[in-house]
């Protein structure tokens, strides 16, 4: 990379990272990772466990400030922002789905879905309408008044997806969104997610270790041991086994 540091990234990239380095209390997690996410695409970040996918997503979404390197969102530098500005950016432009639903146990499904809207300062009525609409679109309108403890795991994960989609984010980060689900549920959840992303032209950054999941994306960025691997499929036992399964 020979781009001078003050140069802004190209305009068609919504999210752009250059030579990211990050270490968790000394143990290196990301080593010199660069990538660009185009507007409206679904980008898969693939790699086995411990390859730095979550750290990369955290750096891109502004949860972590990388030790070294740059992150730009819509030609705005994220790595130089203060904590409050990053918080506001996350609230207003980003959404996050993690491998566990991470719902607030005291709130019902629709309240969980409406929570980001309420946090943005929207009115109670409008937030409720949007939340219920999204829950119905994801086929869980019937359980909108139940609390997370009374739902099935797949339903909870769908509530988490509805919560992420209800805010109409610019970029949706999904970190192993299907990890705790059985295969049929996982396929359904993924289909829902990708369909919603395509129909609303959302930009999605999807971290996964599963080549089948990665196959749904427009493009894949393989990571290995915190570095960008060659674009070829990951070599190794896990990759081979997965390939033979998908063949």
């Amino acid at each position, binding site marked *: 990379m020979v781009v001078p540091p003050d140069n802004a990234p190209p305009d068609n990239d919504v999210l752009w990272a250059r030579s990211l380095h990050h270490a968790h209390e000394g143990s290196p997690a990301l080593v010199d990772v660069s990538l660009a996410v185009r507007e409206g695409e679904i980008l898969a970040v693939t790699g086995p466990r411990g390859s730095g996918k979550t750290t990369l997503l955290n750096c891109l979404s502004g949860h972590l400030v990388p030790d070294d390197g740059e992150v730009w969102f819509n030609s705005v530098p994220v790595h130089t922002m203060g904590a409050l500005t990053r*918080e506001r950016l996350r609230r*207003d432009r980003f959404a996050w789905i993690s491998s566990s639903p*991470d719902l607030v146990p*005291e709130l019902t499904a629709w309240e969980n879905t409406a*929570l980001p809207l*309420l946090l943005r300062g929207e009115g*109670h009525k409008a937030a409720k309408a949007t939340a219920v609409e999204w829950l119905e679109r994801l086929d869980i309108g019937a359980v909108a008044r139940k*609390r997370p*403890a009374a739902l099935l795991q797949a339903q909870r994960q769908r509530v988490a997806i509805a919560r992420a989609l209800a805010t109409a984010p610019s970029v949706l980060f999904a970190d192993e969104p299907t990890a705790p689900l059985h295969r049929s549920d996982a396929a359904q959840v993924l289909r829902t997610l990708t369909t919603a992303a395509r129909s609303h032209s959302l930009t999605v950054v999807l971290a996964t270790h599963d080549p089948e999941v990665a196959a749904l994306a427009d493009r894949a960025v393989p990571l290995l041991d915190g570095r960008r691997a060659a674009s070829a499929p990951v070599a190794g036992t896990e990759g081979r086994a997965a390939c033979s399964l998908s063949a």
Partner: protein
Amino acid sequence: MLALRLARGTHPLVLLRRLFVAAASAGVGFLLLCTLGHALSHPGQTSASLLRLLWCLAPLAATVQFAVAVARTDPSTRPRPGLSAVGLGPARLAATAAASTALSCTLGSMVALLVFLHLRGDLTGLPFDRAGTELLAADRPLPLAAVVILLSLAPLTASTASAWVLRPRGGTRGRRPVAPRGDGVRDTPAPPPASSTPHTTGTATLAPPTPLAASLVTSPPAGLPWGVALTAAGLAVETYASRGGGSGRVLPLPGHADLAPAGVLAGWSLTALGLALAGPGLVHLCGFLLQAVRPGAVRLLAGRVLQGEAGRIGRPLGVVCATASGLIAATTLYSRAPGPSFGPLTALGAALVLVCTTATLILVALETKQARTATTRALLRQGAAAQTLRAAALTRLVALITLFAPVTWALATLAAAPLAP
């Protein structure tokens, strides 16, 4: 040995908590020994000595409650997924917690014994030698068995209570979730008022939540009607017992132990027990009111969390309220009663009860915060500003104070009214 080794590596703040337990235990031990001294120097006044012993139950109960709260929030007694595989499972950890509680309480009792002997003049060479000779019956030999029994009271009760509270339950289903989640509330009905003071009831029901209780927020805690009924009954008993006026029939405070209308004491105990039982219901009600009628994010979070955590935080809060109202009433009475104002031992006991109950409340609040760590992290991930979460916490605090301060004040006034000379 394991308890000692775990204690050696813990954070200084955690050790400080244990030191506080030791200090509380020392205070209780000293009070009990002073009661023994009173009994030795006044062999004729059996009922007065007995009354002093009974008054010692309140600090003892508060200390036990505090010790259990410390044991519950102790990071070294939390189940660890990795260590369960090497044999350090929940049962072993409960035993460890009981051992460390017994250790700190015994340390406190030893300190109490040393101070007592020093003040009696049995140990010399330090300032304040023989400062309390008459008070502590220095002219008579101490009965060894009585001293041992009195001093082992706090360590035994506290360690038994913490072992009971932390005992593994639930057979095949794991009792304490490895990552404690704040989504469970004990939905068992309030226990019958079996114990002598409200504080012991408070400790016995301070059990950790079951994971993923399905009916968590929807059903309010069941104790509210019981609590209200008991409080009302306590006030009625007290008023009935103190009817007839007369300057002689005021409350038997420790410094004025010449008279003993047991009805008043029973009334106060009932009132306090009722408040402790009503606490969770009141907190739940508070949360309900907070999140009613089109809430925004802050009110919604604050109210629902209060509703969800009512079972955990309500009981210590009720106990603190009962203590505060009792202290207010007692102060009012002391200021009106003829004769000497309260002595150093009464002050020690009252301070012990107040500090222990307040510290327990703070610890339980801390435990609640720890249990909600995962939820808080998830909320921050969803873009909730830290400021919003702080605002929600502040709203909860203000709401609780708004509800509980008038209740405390009203109960104190009602409790003091019939006893006014």
